[in-house]
């Protein structure tokens, strides 16, 4: 039995599966990382993802335009991010509660629009698998990493970009300063509100893309609560990844690989109760990241509203 599990083609399938599964988590979690680094916890990620997923699906369902679908998902995500920023930055509302409000809005509104505009579960032709020339010809590695659809590649490209922005640019420094010590940043002429608006809006936009990656690239369907709480796991991955893009990537990959592995274990008939198998990704991810991220502390101003003393 164990020999079955680790034949070459099985292992390739399993790893490719993990790469695909991690895609929506990456978009959502990297976006959330920006927001949290600047001190804003957006619990509405899942709701924004649902709205993004529906918007993208609707465009593709009506017109077949995949790029248009992604663009609308970005726009809708951006607007919901702006709304979250308005509530939490301008109005200084309690972040946890307003995030839940955004989530419930997205959950209800995406279903309402779905009922009114489409009304039954349908499939669309989403982004096709686009093997990267040359790289996809490399044996094994090509099949695992370079034989996916465009939105999968995009998610992984995002990680070095986010790392670069946060660690190598002035903007990244400002974001971190605002998240650590908004008073000091403000004194030095950094607009706390502007930075937070920017990061939360970017987070919303990327959550929109995360939703689109489900509805028009990986699953090609939409139904009520399509994300099934995936956005909340993405938020957890930001915490476990210690607010660093590379560790968020690690967390997403561990979670997704173990998920792919537990499916394989069941499919090849290794006698483990299914309840135990489906628990393992959660347990392992927590264990690995708790150990690895032990010395990291959250941004000091996380969840704290900032008011200028005028």
């Amino acid at each position: 039995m164990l020999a079955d599990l680790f034949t070459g083609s099985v292992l390739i399938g399993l790893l490719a599966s993990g790469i695909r599964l991690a895609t929506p988590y990456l978009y959502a979690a990297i976006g959330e990382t920006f927001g949290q680094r600047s001190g804003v916890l957006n619990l509405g990620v899942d709701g924004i993802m649902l709205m993004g997923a529906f918007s993208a699906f609707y465009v593709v369902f009506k017109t077949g335009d995949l790029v248009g679908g992604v663009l609308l998902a970005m726009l809708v995500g951006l607007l919901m991010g702006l709304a979250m920023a308005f509530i939490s930055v301008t109005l200084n509302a309690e972040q946890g509660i307003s995030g839940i409000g955004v989530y419930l809005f997205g959950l209800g509104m995406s279903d309402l629009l779905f009922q009114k505009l489409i009304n039954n579960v349908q499939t669309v032709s989403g982004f096709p698998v686009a093997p990267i020339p040359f790289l996809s010809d490399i044996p094994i590695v090509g099949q695992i990493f370079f034989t996916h659809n465009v939105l999968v590649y995009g998610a992984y490209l995002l990680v070095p970009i986010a790392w670069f922005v946060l660690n190598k640019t002035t903007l990244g420094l400002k974001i971190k300063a605002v998240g650590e010590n908004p008073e000091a940043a403000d004194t030095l002429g950094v607009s706390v509100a502007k930075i937070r608006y920017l990061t939360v809006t970017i987070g919303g936009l990327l959550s929109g893309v995360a939703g689109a990656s489900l509805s028009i690239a990986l699953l090609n369907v939409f139904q009520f609560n399509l994300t099934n709480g995936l956005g909340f796991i993405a938020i957890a991955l930001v915490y476990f990844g210690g607010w660093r893009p590379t560790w968020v990537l690690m967390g997403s990959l561990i979670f997704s690989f173990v998920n792919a592995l537990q499916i394989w274990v069941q499919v090849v008939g290794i006698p483990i109760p299914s309840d135990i198998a489906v628990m393992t990704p959660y347990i392992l991810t927590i264990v690995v990241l708790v150990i690895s991220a032990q010395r990291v502390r959250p941004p000091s101003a996380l969840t704290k509203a900032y008011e200028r003393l005028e």
Partner: protein
Amino acid sequence: MKRFGKLVIFLVMVAMLSTACATATPAAPAESTGPFRVAVVTPSAINDLAFSQSMYDALAKIQGEMGKDKFEFVLSDGMFVVDDAAAAIRDYASQGYNLVIAHGSQYGAALQEIAPDFPNVSFAWGTAGDTFGIPNVFAYEAFSQEGGYVNGVLAAALNKSGTIGVVGPVEVGDAKLYVDGFVAGVKATNPDITVNVNYIGSFGDVALASEAAQTHIGAGADVMTGSAQMVVGAVGVAKEKGVLWFGTQADQTSLAPEIVVACQIYDWAVVVRDMISLVQSGTMGGKAYAVSLENEGLKMVYNAGFALPADVKALGDAAVKGIIDGTVTIGVGGK
């Protein structure tokens, strides 16, 4: 400014919450001589092509038979949070509905608590076989292993690769019965076929169902099936890869007309009709139902657009006949 801000937030939140729960239609005031009024609470959307839709379709059918002036129904769907569902059940009961259906086995404990408070209202829940000994509670379940067996027979006949994949939700209730019945049907037809079964641990995780389907296809499956509303993810993958699909709970043909072969559909109308006549004659509950091929609460629906060979169809028909007259023993759930 700060206080004003908080007020705005509060109003926004209220608006959002009311949007999130906007699917329930308000009820007309209770009348003793008016139409028979049914309220239903379902865990997923009524257009899920699966469990919740099967109940919606049955009630719409009964309304067509009895007429809108004799039969009214309202629905709260998407109630995957049991606490919310319990609140809705209590609300409907206090609004004087004749029958309140809690369409989900997860609602059992809530119903057990609520039903005794409303002795003049009938309650029903399923899939389950237990009325808790409460006089105003009905229970209903599905012998889904029957259609599972028929699907298994058909799947085995169409299978060429020697491997069949099953994407299950959680290893309980009618989902488990269906999967076990399906495996029994395959094995009875061709014991050499390998049936790979996995349970993804969720009724709603479409992404994981999709990845499970990819995995089954990677393991060599050329025919697949699955149960519950998250299988739309698996059907999408099957369609893309040209793998045959067998459905259950509702007719899934519209989702992928190219590859759906047959579906077992649940028609709760037989059960609900009987409940209505019992309630109207003064019996408020106490009866446990099961839909089966025999009482036509379970039906096999074939995709007219799929060219199913006549000899394979004949195997399916023989299995249906055998299950009804008792010559076929499934060996699952006492059948």
